[in-house]
């Protein structure tokens, strides 16, 4: 009797959980699986309008979209610039960002003077929405900086400093989460390990590179891998800065695709889908390779 009741309850629990999970599963099926299947199909299609009925339809187009994509890359020039900006943004935001985040995290971990204040100051932008932080930052670089340094124009208004100013914003805004994760990982290190290292005569440099870094490396690895995976989708907050009006010279691949998809006609979707698939074919193996390389060559606790 007790066993039957227990089994019945277990069954009800499973049904309850399945029903509750139904909505997100359907949502995932439609907005992820469905969208990606449609996008994949579009790679091999083109759009044509019947001049008699005025109605359009997608028809098979073989591999011609890849040919058109290559033609556009060769002739338009903006994609090349976007690719260069994406790589620059990756290097600056991920690599430089991680380096500085580690330094700040170590500062906080070591409880140096003002560590608590630094933690709050660096984390604060992460809890505000991008449009708010962009507005504050915009007022600072366009309003305060020209006054402080006696410039004729703000840093965003000046074409020569604009991209750097936007990338700097992205580095700054990225500190919050990274510092929280790194300092959390550092706090998880058994104090006896660092104490023993100190007793063995390890200086702070040795302590950081041979004790702390290997122990928190899985966290760093996560940021590096997600950084590589997101190379082609990172739009470096350009939408918040410029809306859909950013000039070609500041675009990243992520922004280029986002902007073009937003304003695309039915004719243009297949080509954009082709870009998406082609970039996935580059980004996916690159991500796996990065993960493998980091696992193999990254610092080890041993």
């Amino acid at each position, binding site marked *: 009797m007790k066993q039957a009741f227990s089994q019945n309850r277990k069954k009800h629990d499973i049904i309850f959980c399945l029903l509750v999970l139904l909505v997100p599963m359907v949502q995932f099926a439609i907005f992820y699986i469905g969208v990606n299947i449609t996008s994949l199909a579009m790679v091999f299609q083109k759009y044509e309008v019947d001049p008699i009925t005025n109605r359009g339809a997608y028809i098979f187009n073989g591999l011609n979209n890849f040919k058109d994509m290559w033609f556009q890359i060769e002739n338009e020039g903006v994609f090349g610039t976007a690719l260069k900006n994406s790589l620059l943004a990756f290097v600056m935001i991920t690599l430089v960002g991680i380096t500085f985040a580690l330094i700040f995290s170590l500062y906080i971990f070591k409880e140096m003077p003002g560590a608590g204040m630094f933690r709050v100051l660096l984390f604060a932008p992460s809890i505000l929405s991008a449009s708010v932080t962009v507005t504050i930052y915009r007022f600072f670089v366009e309003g305060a900086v020209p006054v402080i340094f006696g410039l004729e124009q703000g840093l965003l208004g000046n074409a020569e400093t604009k991209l750097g100013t936007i990338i700097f914003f992205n580095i700054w805004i990225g500190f919050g989460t990274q510092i929280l994760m790194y300092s959390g990982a550092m706090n998880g290190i058994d104090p006896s390990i660092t104490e023993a290292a100190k007793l063995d005569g390890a200086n702070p440099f040795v302590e950081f590179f041979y004790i702390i870094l290997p122990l928190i490396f899985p966290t760093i690895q996560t940021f590096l891998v997600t950084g590589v995976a997101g190379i082609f989708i990172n739009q470096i907050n350009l939408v918040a800065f410029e809306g859909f009006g950013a000039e*070609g010279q500041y675009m990243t691949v992520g922004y280029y695709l986002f902007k073009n998809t937003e304003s695309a006609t*039915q004719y243009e979707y297949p080509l954009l889908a082709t870009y998406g698939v082609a970039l996935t074919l580059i980004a996916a193996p690159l991500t796996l390779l990065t993960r493998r390389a980091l696992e193999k060559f990254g610092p080890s606790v041993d």
Partner: protein
Amino acid sequence: MKKNLTKMMAVLCALTACMPFAACTGATGGVEIDKTKTQLYVSNFNGGVGHNWLDAHIARFEADYAETEFTPGKKGVQVIVSNHKKGMVNIGGSMKKAKEEIYFLEKVNYHDEIAQGRFLDITDMVTEPLTEFGETETIEDKLYPSQKEYYKVNGRYYGLPHAQSPTLITYDADLFDQKKLFMGEDGEFKYTSTATNLSKGVDNVKGTYDDGLPATYEEFFSLCATMKKRGVDPIIWSGMYEWYTTRFAKQLRADFDGEEATVSYTFNGTMSHIVDTIDKNGNITYKDPVVITENNGYEVLSSASYYYTFKFIEEMYNGKYYSKYAINENVSHGDAQAYFLKSRFTSETDIAMLIEGLYWVNEASGAFKSMSSYQGSSLQERNLKVMPLPKATAEQVGEQTTIVDSLNQLAFISAYIDESKKELATTFLQYCTTQASLEEFLLETGLTRNYKIDYSKVYDNLCPYSKSVVDLLASSNYIMPASSSPIIQKNYEAFVGDYEIGTTKYAEPINAIRAKISAVDFFNQFRSKYDANSWKALLG
């Protein structure tokens, strides 16, 4: 405990997943449905022209049709409006399930949407005389020739023009008077608007609305130089959104080409100002008139209109004929409007002109309200006026002004409308296009809708700004910046959107000028975007 926690987490996950649905408020927007009447649902882009005009139309329509049975057993109509700021891109996908039956939107790619079957064929209501409303004309009669060409796709109409949205220059005529900035027959800027010897203006006719205003680019920049000498900042635009200058540049471009400007959207016609060569000083030799087809469409990029437009932007920027706020990325369009309006009442440097969409006076209602403590600062009291576009060359003075739409606004009926509601929807859309409604729209918004009608009956009741809008548009030609040409639809951004008068590196010509690229060099970069070979590839 663990199981309860799992359940709670699962419920939380499900609620989170359902959160997007919270945004769906339904089409009634909290309005109580009157079951004794037939409901008509309208979707309205609540931007530059707002919704007061629509509310006024609806009040009259509901009263006029209070006794009419559009549905058996139901007397009268209840129109329910959903005001929003969504574009077609946000609405199109959900139209099938939406309650809305009539739409007034902006940024609609008309031909692309027709191909998707989202618009009802309204040919009959467009071509039948509006006798039900006491008029003899059809809606088609009220359209400009280029509008007929644009809206009639293979002989069928699927949509109608909505609001006017060209980006032009508004000037403060009171400031012009105060600083004596009107031009006389002697070419000097030292007169007020009441002087009897003012220059003839762009239309080259004495005694008309544009007397004393600059007729050519050269005169315009002479005026700007005079303003600077007299301590006035000539022009302001939004430093945050430089594309206001680009939209204005598109107007200059279209005005230079006149009716031929349509050819750059249809690739079907002859263009007479195609540049053969241009030297570094801007001296041009022209080709013989070129017949443009889809096969040589790239030739339109060599129209001299682009060069003269870039030259205008170059002179405006390099001459520093702008307010400091125009190059500040913090200054939104609303800020620019407020700086322009307030400058004459505060200790700030006076600003004489504003580059904005014609609808800006509606957007600036907050700025006008905030100035209520200043005497004579309301829109009705102020002498704000739209400046006619100056011409690139003296030879063009006297030619009709050509205006190009910049926001592709559209009124249409959903193709998914219930059969039983079609009569009501078409009646309402016709009602919105009657003389009385078009006049009401002008009185409510200060702007005209895109129809060729006579506004003389209400002219005297208008504020100076609206009078200048009517004066300018009544004497202008009007063209639509798109077509069903596959080359346009396949490359929409390149030919209609952001890159229309720019390159992929500099979508905004002003940014090329800021990067110290000369107008001649930028023109050469622009016209070499495509050649015969790359165009062939573009054609597919």
